[in-house]
């Protein structure tokens, strides 16, 4: 994977003038993305357009340097990602290729089909194509949002980059928090695109293309998960299982294509174990696997990881992370994520990608997406129970099913009837598009009461739930309940958090590319058209996937209770072992300086948690990580902090 950046500039300047006026700016942007592409950083100044690139070489190591320019038309591309079916597309094309890279395949497809070429791509991508014939800049982002793409418009022109920090490095924006984006992230786990956590910095929504031409910016969706599709009536389980196997094995096979070795993450759960099984078989036994373990037993899955690695005979590496280390990693995590977090779970993944890199590996396949497309999350089971309950709100029996959903939460002494009250939020209207997510958003929304008076007033007219609902396609209203839940989950949690703050950013922080077989769009579309009973059978989640997985995965893993990936946090920030800087980070002074949270409430929260040695309820844990990462975002990326930067002089500059 790589990093891309660029901006518009005035036409008709000589190469020397362009160099003098824009060279440093473009090189700074490319240099700030070096972590995404340590192998080479380049900057190209064309007439009217600046394009920068940081390269992580994976395909066509020798010939894949970017930007790539078509000599006949001058059309030029910078590309971050992978087009996994590039060999097939290349065969179909009449273009005279000069490299073996997938980047040139995009260029060829664009020249033959225009921007609709994105529909032919199986892959993960964010790219920019400048077409001088029509003086137009095209941007595109992959269907589900695996790779990031940000942009900003100003009086000087239009600029884009993989990460916001490159826009800061180019001087396009002075970093400042976006109040609405902050409020949305605190309640929804992610801002609602195009908003981000930074003022004036937008993100291209997943599955979108954009056009900048003649000073005008336009964007539209070219793909959306059509979860409302009519399920294939009468589809037999055996047939579905067979089709699933063919698709998933092909999705894994395509993702093992690379000119460097491809390894895999192994969490010890069903999804990653399954991918590792398939990959190991396709690689003929040479698979390397990587896992993270926790010193805190409640979060640890090492026994399962070692079991699977042993049975599959992979070369297995793992790293043990303590709560204290997680605290120590947090500043770097936030700097990379460029987003407020409600969980500490990204931190161990930054540590894990460092291990991958230390083992001289550049690419891993990983299991994200399976829970979204095959209805694996508890959220779907919870939604099913709540809907069942909503039909007879007075029933005592129906909500009792909730008890079966969350056996891993520490609630031994909890009154189940009390717990049920919480899940009754929004029960009166099961047709509401937000029905599935209201309990979660009510829980995360508790953090909003920590706002300082001034911040609360500033954001009084921002209702994050209303904002996300307004962003939904109109057709969603006619969809089945689970399909609506799924769509919300893919937009907010998956694209806005799991694939970005916890995914791409934590991988790229150590120059490692992640590949996501479950998010192959053919598989997403296949799963959407499966009858619901094949996915969520009663309260048995991912039913068809488990049935298929039985041929690859040990029985013990198949029968494991679902174990969500989580990491400790409250003790790392407020317990007796918390590093000294956390006191400053969570101090009244920090709260006053950043201005988002009320000083007194922050002080009381910290006092409450410290008094308990960092043992915290879910609500208090979430509050303390939200405050800490909001303050870190300001501390690490807002002035007077310097923009994260690498050597500008190392960026190769060309002007033609």
């Amino acid at each position, binding site marked *: 994977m790589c990093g891309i950046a660029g901006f518009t500039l005035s036409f008709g300047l000589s190469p020397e003038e362009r160099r003098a006026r824009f060279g440093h700016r473009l090189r700074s942007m490319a240099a700030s993305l070096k972590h995404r592409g340590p192998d080479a950083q380049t900057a190209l100044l064309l007439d009217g357009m600046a394009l920068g690139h940081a390269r992580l070489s994976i395909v066509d190591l020798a010939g894949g340097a970017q930007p790539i320019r078509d000599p006949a038309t001058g059309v030029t591309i910078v590309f971050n990602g992978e087009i996994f079916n590039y060999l097939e597309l290349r065969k179909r094309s009449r273009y005279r290729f000069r490299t073996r890279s997938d980047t040139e395949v995009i260029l060829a497809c664009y020249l033959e089909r225009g921007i609709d070429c994105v529909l032919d791509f199986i892959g993960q991508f964010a790219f920019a194509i400048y077409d001088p014939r029509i003086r137009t800049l095209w941007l595109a982002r992959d269907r589900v949002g695996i790779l990031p793409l940000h942009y900003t418009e100003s009086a000087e022109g239009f600029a884009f980059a993989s990460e916001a920090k490159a826009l800061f490095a180019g001087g396009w924006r002075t970093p400042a928090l976006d109040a609405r984006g902050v409020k949305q992230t605190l309640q929804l786990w992610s801002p609602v695109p195009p908003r981000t956590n930074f003022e004036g910095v937008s993100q291209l929504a997943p599955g979108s293309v954009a056009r900048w031409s003649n000073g005008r910016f336009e964007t539209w969706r070219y793909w959306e998960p059509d979860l409302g599709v009519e399920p294939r009536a009468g589809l037999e389980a055996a047939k579905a299982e067979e089709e699933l196997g063919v698709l998933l094995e092909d999705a894994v096979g395509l993702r093992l294509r690379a000119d460097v070795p491809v390894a895999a993450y192994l969490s010890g759960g069903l999804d990653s174990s399954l991918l590792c099984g398939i990959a190991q078989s396709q690689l003929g036994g040479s698979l390397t696997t990587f896992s993270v373990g926790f010193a805190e037993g409640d979060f640890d899955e090492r026994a399962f990881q070692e079991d699977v690695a042993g049975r599959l005979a992979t070369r297995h590496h793992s790293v043990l992370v303590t709560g204290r280390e997680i605290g120590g990693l947090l500043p770097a995590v936030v700097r990379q994520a460029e987003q407020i977090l409600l969980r500490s779970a990204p931190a161990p993944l930054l540590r894990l990608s460092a291990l991958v890199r230390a083992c001289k590996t550049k690419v891993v396949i990983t299991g994200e997406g399976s829970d979204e497309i095959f209805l694996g999350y508890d959220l779907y089971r919870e939604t099913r129970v709540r809907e069942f309950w909503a039909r007879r709100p007075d029933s005592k029996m129906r909500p009792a099913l909730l008890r079966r959903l969350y056996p891993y939460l520490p*609630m031994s*002494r*909890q009154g189940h009837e009390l717990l049920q*009250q*919480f899940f009754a939020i929004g029960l009166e209207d099961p047709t509401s598009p937000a029905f599935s997510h209201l309990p979660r958003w009510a829980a995360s929304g*508790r953090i909003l009461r920590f706002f300082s008076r001034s911040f609360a007033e500033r954001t009084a007219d921002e209702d994050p739930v209303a904002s996300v609902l307004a962003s939904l396609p109109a057709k969603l209203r006619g969809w089945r309940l689970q399909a609506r839940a799924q769509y919300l989950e893919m937009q907010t949690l998956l694209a806005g958090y799991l694939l970005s703050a916890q995914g791409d950013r934590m991988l790229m922080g150590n120059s490692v590319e992640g590949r996501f077989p479950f998010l192959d769009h053919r598989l997403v579309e296949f799963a959407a058209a499966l009858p619901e009973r094949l996915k969520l059978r009663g309260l048995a989640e991912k039913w068809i996937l488990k049935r298929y997985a039985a041929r690859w995965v040990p029985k013990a893993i198949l029968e494991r209770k679902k174990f969500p990936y989580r990491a400790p946090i409250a003790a790392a920030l407020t317990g007796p072992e918390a590093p000294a800087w956390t006191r400053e980070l969570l101090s009244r002074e920090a709260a006053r300086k950043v201005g988002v949270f009320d000083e007194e*409430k922050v002080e009381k*929260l910290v006092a409450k948690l410290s008094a308990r040695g960092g043992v915290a*309820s879910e609500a208090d844990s979430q509050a303390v990580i939200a405050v800490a990462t909001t303050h870190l975002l300001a501390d690490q990326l807002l002035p007077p902090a310097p923009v994260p930067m690498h050597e500008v002089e190392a960026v190769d500059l060309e002007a033609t």
Partner: protein
Amino acid sequence: MNARARIRRFIVESFFVDVFSDEESFLRNSIIDSLGMLELVAFLEKEYGIKIADTELIPENLDSLARVCAFVERKQLAGTTAA
């Protein structure tokens, strides 16, 4: 300070909530999360010298300030009667 004011203060201080009415459901309005309810129970036991059985952890007893106050009153009364 009477019981109602004292319990209200505990909730404000522990759950960082500013405004809520005596009748509002703690759980349905996300004033207190389900684990927070256990903090509330621990507080009541300590503060009022009562013992609360698991079977008493039900919304009717605990899911609003008014219900909590009535429940504590009943428990204290029962304690006095028994003694």
